[in-house]
């Protein structure tokens, strides 16, 4: 047997096993994270976007199906649930700050969540998107597992919603700093809050990597807007589709 054949056999074995895909994912993330830090956390070098580019590049280059990759990467994906539960910790540690700002928090979550849904609905209609796509777009500002659940309830396509929420998360995390600087919003709590409400976990991760206060308000906004959105999207959707 030639060396090339042996190597090919090793590859065939490896790509059927979770180990290779897990190693690739963690490795790509470490490279992306190192780049992000080396660039002094330049927002366009968002670690999620860079790792995703690196891993997808490999999959496309070696013609590997996503399902095969996910079979290994699902162990990392699984941790999203426990990590969501763990978001109670930053909220708990800053409970006094949260209570002191409770009026601003509750009002902004309610109005912000409704605003996010209405602007999405309005823009999607304006651009003439089809019904299934509009339904899949509506819950896009909340964390993927919540958004997918909502999408299913209102008759969207959950996997399309997953795509849309991730793109929303990366977009907010990548351009949020520029947008808020341009608008001269300097209040760290307000900046964090906007990141969490607009771009869920990816925005929260970005806010946390920059500043503790911003991170806390991002986590609070993300958690609360997830709950509020889950409750109002189905209602609002019924109202909106009745009106059009």
């Amino acid at each position, binding site marked *: 047997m030639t060396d090339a054949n042996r190597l090919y056999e090793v590859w065939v074995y490896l790509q059927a096993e979770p180990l290779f895909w897990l190693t690739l*994912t*963690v490795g790509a993330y470490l490279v992306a994270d190192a780049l992000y830090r080396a660039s002094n956390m330049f927002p366009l070098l968002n670690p*999620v976007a860079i*790792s995703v*580019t690196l*891993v*997808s590049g490999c999959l496309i280059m070696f013609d590997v199906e*996503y399902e095969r990759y*996910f079979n290994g990467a699902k162990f*990392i*994906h699984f941790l*999203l*649930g*426990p*990590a*969501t*539960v*763990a*978001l*109670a*910790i*930053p909220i*708990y540690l800053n*409970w006094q700050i949260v209570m002191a700002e409770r009026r601003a928090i509750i009002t*902004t979550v309610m*109005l*912000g969540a409704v*605003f*996010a849904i209405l*602007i999405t609905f309005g*823009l999607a209609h304006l*651009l003439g998107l089809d019904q299934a*796509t509009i339904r899949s*777009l509506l819950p*896009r*500002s909340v964390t993927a*597992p*919540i958004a997918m*659940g909502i999408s299913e309830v209102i008759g969207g396509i959950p996997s399309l919603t*997953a*795509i*849309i929420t*991730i793109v*929303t*998360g*990366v*977009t*907010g995390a990548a351009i949020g700093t520029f*947008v*808020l600087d341009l*608008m001269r919003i300097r209040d760290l*709590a*307000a900046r964090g809050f906007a990141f969490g*409400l607009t771009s869920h*976990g*990816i925005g929260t991760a970005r806010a*946390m990597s920059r500043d503790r206060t911003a991170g806390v308000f991002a986590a609070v906004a993300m958690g609360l807007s*997830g*709950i509020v959105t889950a*409750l109002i999207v189905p209602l609002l959707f019924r109202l909106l589709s009745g009106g059009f």
Partner: protein
Amino acid sequence: MLHTIFLILLLQLGGEILQKYFSLTVPGPVIGLMLLLGLLLVSRRKTSGWVPKFRQQMVDSAETLLTYLSLLFVPIGVGVIMHLQLLDGQLLAVLSVIIVGTIATLIFTAFLFQLLRRKHDHD
């Protein structure tokens, strides 16, 4: 460490069960978040015995997990790239909705929150 991991999994499991049983629109892990926050707040006054020690361990485990929050989005993010064909022909329009909507929502929430906080300060 293992005790705190167990509690996190248990609360997520409790959340999932509540969600399915009552067919709630709020997902299981978010219910788990609320349960954990409730437990922590209820136990806040306990300052002796095993409770404060356990609470500290909980804080440490959770912070370790949250340090790598970005990594956890990579598998599903790769799915985005591999499944772009789901958006057939609507890619540009969907991207426009996302980008314009995200900028508008960022500005709206940041301004509103800043405004309400300031007003609050003057009360």
